């Protein structure tokens, strides 16, 4: 599956030492609490809420994103919240490697594994757990606290199991995200 070359405006994106490409038109709150693994692309209009951190002192990581991830235009990453033993708090979110999040999707999951593709305009509820090698189709609503098992395709509202992914999913998604990153080139 060959992807076309995606061009971007060189002035709009900041490239870090580890190869992350972050749009200046995205909103990153509490950037000291966000970890990007490297070669991750954050596109225009994204919102990442690193300021909603766990109560209590010390340095905390709020959003950890792995390598070769893609946050498409207008996607929102915000940590989930709950009260536990009477204390209200937001809890950290972890996203694995080779994860693609589609345009306009809202993610409040607890964990997203590696090799996951989330379509456009999805809503991933609070404390949902998405395991490795999953596909969430466009416009899916994953309710809070759902666990999406490995190699499954979910769609609908509320999201339900639809189909199974092949064994080669890991290689496919790895190839896809690497391909996208290498073809995400500045326009000169």
């Amino acid at each position, binding site marked *: 599956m060959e992807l076309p070359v995606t061009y971007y405006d060189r002035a709009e994106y900041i490239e870090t030492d580890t190869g992350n490409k972050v749009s200046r038109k995205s909103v990153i709150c509490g950037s000291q609490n966000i970890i990007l693994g490297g070669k991750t692309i954050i596109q225009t209009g994204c*919102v990442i809420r690193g300021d909603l951190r766990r109560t209590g002192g010390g340095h905390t990581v709020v959003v950890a994103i792995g390598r070769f991830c893609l946050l498409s235009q*207008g996607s*929102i990453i915000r940590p989930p*919240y709950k009260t536990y033993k009477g204390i*209200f708090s937001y809890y950290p979110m972890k996203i694995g490697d080779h994860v693609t999040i589609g345009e306009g999707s*809202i993610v409040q999951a607890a964990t997203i594994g590696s090799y996951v593709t989330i379509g456009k*305009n999805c809503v991933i509820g609070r404390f949902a757990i998405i395991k490795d090698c999953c596909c969430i189709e466009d416009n899916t609503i994953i309710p809070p606290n759902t666990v999406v098992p490995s190699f499954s395709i979910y769609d609908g509202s*509320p999201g339900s199991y639809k189909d199974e992914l092949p064994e080669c999913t890991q290689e496919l998604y790895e190839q896809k995200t690497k391909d996208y990153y290498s073809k995400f080139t500045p326009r000169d």
Partner: protein
Amino acid sequence: MIFTTYLGTILHPRCKVVAESGPIVIGANNIIEENAIIFNKNTTPLIIGNNNVFEVGCYVEGLGIGDKNTIEARARLIGTTVVGNNCVIGSACTTDLHEKMDDNTVIYGSDCLRRKQQEQTSAQASLHLRHLEYLREMLPKYNHLKQLSLDG
């Protein structure tokens, strides 16, 4: 046009309140999350009560909203909707154009089905209170606050 809010309402970064043709009055202790849009296309004022939660990316028009409602992520309130108290509009659900929602109504699922829920419990109320307390403590640490004139 005029947009008035009472003390205690929290607006997250990037939410929009657009009073195009008529004023918008927002009560106390509401939470309006990022990318939420509150829009008034009518000339009559859009009055929003207290203790409501407008989650990420929701879109709100209509004639009025009561108290203790939850508008979930990407839900749409359209036309001349009137919302009662303690209602939930589920993720990506839409109201009808001229709907009058009774108290305790829940809209859910892909077909926007409706059902009734129980009155709000004290646990839910305290969650909202604690959420407000948390945001009041945490948001100013990481974000720049814009000074609003508080003569309204």
